[in-house]
């Protein structure tokens, strides 16, 4: 049953690791702006392709 010492030690260490990770992330400013990244990830990386209909005239103009 002395395995409980080991288990306890491990669980406390894991908890402390998570805690340190939290402190570090706060320190690095991860929680300073919690809105913009949520929008940013929704942007498509690729540029607009000239396939959709309403963008056809734009590209015509460009080639003029």
């Amino acid at each position, binding site marked *: *049953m002395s395995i*409980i*010492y080991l288990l*306890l030690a491990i669980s*406390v260490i894991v*908890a402390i690791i998570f*805690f340190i990770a*939290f*402190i570090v992330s*706060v*320190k690095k*400013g991860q*929680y*300073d*702006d*919690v*809105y*913009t990244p949520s*929008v*940013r990830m*929704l*942007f*498509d990386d690729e*540029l*607009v392709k000239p396939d959709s209909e309403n*963008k056809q*005239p*734009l590209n015509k*103009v*460009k080639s003029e």
Partner: protein
Amino acid sequence: MELCFHCGEECQDETILYSEKTFCCSGCKTVFEILNSNDLTYYYDLEKTPGISPKIREGKYDYLQNKEIIEKLLEFDHGNTQIVSFDIPSIHCSSCIWILENLHKLHKGIKSSQVDFPKKKIRLSFSSEEISLKDLVLLLSRIGYEPNISLDHYEEKESDVDRSLIYKLGVAGFAFGNIMFLSFPEYFEINEFWLDQFKHLFRWLMFSFSLPVVFYSGRDYFTSAYKGLRSGILNIDVPIALGILVLFLRSTAEIVLDLGTGFYDSLSGLVFFLLLGKFFQQKTYSFLSFERDYKSYFPIAVTRVSTEAGKITEEQIQVYKIQKGDRIIIRNEELIPMDAILIKGNASIDYSFVTGEAEPVEKVSGDKLFSGGRQQGGIIEIEALKPVKQSYLTQLWSDEVFSKDKNSAFQNLTNQISKRFTYAVLGIAILSAIFWMFYDASKAWNVFTAVLIIACPCAIALAAPFTLGNMLRIFGKNHLYLKDTNIIEQTANIDTVVFDKTGTITANDKSKIEYEGLELTEEEKNLLGGSLRASNHPLSRSLYNILDKNNISTPEDFTEHTGLGLETSYRDLNLKIGSSTFMNRSEILVPERPAEKKNEKTSVHISSNNQYKGCFSFHNSYREGLSELFKELSVDRQLIILSGDNDGERERLSRLVPEGTKMYFDQKPGDKLRFIKDLQKQGNKIMMVGDGLNDAGALAQSDVGIVISEDINVFSPACDGILDAKRFRDLGSFFKLSERSIKVIKLSFLLSLCYNLIGLAFAVSGNLMPVVAAILMPLSSISIVIFTTLATQFLSKKLKN
């Protein structure tokens, strides 16, 4: 009317058709062109009409070539990499984020950019070899995201964000979870061999987890209690600190003497919930600044002209370097940063920042100009009379009211109650300890500490932060942004509301214009339109905006008489447009007007071929719902109007507001400040509602200073709250809600008192088990949080329509 494809504004003056889309101005079209030619039209797919129509003035950013200023603005500058941060007030939707983060596609000199949406900031990294700072700012301005660069940015570098509360909360939460976990077996007092074996280890682990909670997370409560006691105030932190201390000491004593498990779970839970309350209260509107002074509006640099050996040189200098006697050039829409004398040019100065007077004042060379005025029209040259720091407007900020902390003087509800509470708790603890001393002396110490533990006013301390914090959020959603939660409590006590007139109860740009006199013929109208278009005078411009513009004839002959009016002719038609003095001078008889009309301060007279035709009068247009709001407020509050204007509008105003509303006109900024001070001496609690820098002193002096703003991002002096002008009508509801939140707090106090009484019954009778404390303390906290949240949500239902 067509809407602009880029900015969504109505196309008023002209409609530009380009690529089958309509644009309201060439600026918007240019932005579209730029984006289109760089394959960035995805911008328009994210949101409809996301743009802001760009307005750039020639030469505005010339000062960004000055090395010294560049150095101050850059965050990082080494070799090929420069980093700079800008405030961009026009960031408003996800399209803005997208385009600003894709700037590197517009110019290869820009390496990367990152937007902070809540703060409306952008951080750019670029190479100054490929794009200069000035060009970078111009690029941003051209696409409609003009950065706001003011004197404020010159003075201070970004200070570090205070994150200590989050750390403390993290520590307390971490310890709370682990201690709960470790103390679980002992809640049930299971007599099991292995658990008995390990319980000492568990207890000492709990002890070590509680150390950082008490000495780090809970530190603020001890210092606050100590400070309070030293200045003779029993604030809410005194019983809290006492509770924490007794909890810790008794628990430690228990495990050292092997008497029990102690109350570490309650201890860490208590601290965790208290900090949670603080965190909740700490809502900040990071994109707003409540502490603005003149520095936020003043330019960083100005153009100085110097004549050396007959050669005129212009240079950009930092605004603080202006000496007495320097010659400065001020362009259209630029702010005059110091008191000066006009040397050259037609000055038409808009002093609305300073005096509240909406109409620009004409000045001729030799006249004195005060700092804070904004030039409207062409370029002028002025000579500085004083350095910036000694000028009239900056002097206002040396008044003591700006350095005083309002909140320290305010005794809030929680602290008022906690005083009696502390006495009661100490009384009960001592009395019951004395009782047990005679009855069963072994238990006396236990009972004494138990009372202090269970009576710890955790729930009381939570009631106000959660109620007010939630209210703050609700107000924010409804476009009333308050600096902190104390303001809500203060608002509930207000008995006098003082309004500024111009810009506060009148809408800023919308003057109402009425024509009176003989009707103008079609030809006259056409020429009038043409002449007004050619004139730079602000009155001409606002008049021009409201005229029908079917046909416009361009005048063949056009003369502008500074400070008087225009003379213009087309074929055989001759028009004179201007003030009544201008008419009199041309010996045109201006008919006598009724006294009431005469008082109206601004009118433009028109005569055709030396025949008087009539005049356009400008009225202030008052905000919608003004009468209703005043009626609502006047029921139980005194209302006062304090205006920097002349009393031309007194009659019209008195018809709009309820009887008994006092009105004072011609009030200078200093007068307003003194006026508020005098009222406060009579024991009144005052809310000042204002808008301009001229109200800054009064706003700072009053108990609650609210700024009405048409554009919350752009302009507001130091204040306690910023209200969007569109929600002006709701001011009354905000009052009502503040009062009701105070009632909610009082109810929660009652609720938490019940918990405390139940707990006390256990404690006094000597039966406080750790498990009782472990159940009662979190239960009381959580139920208070739920109660206040639900109650405030319910109250705010009325606002959301």
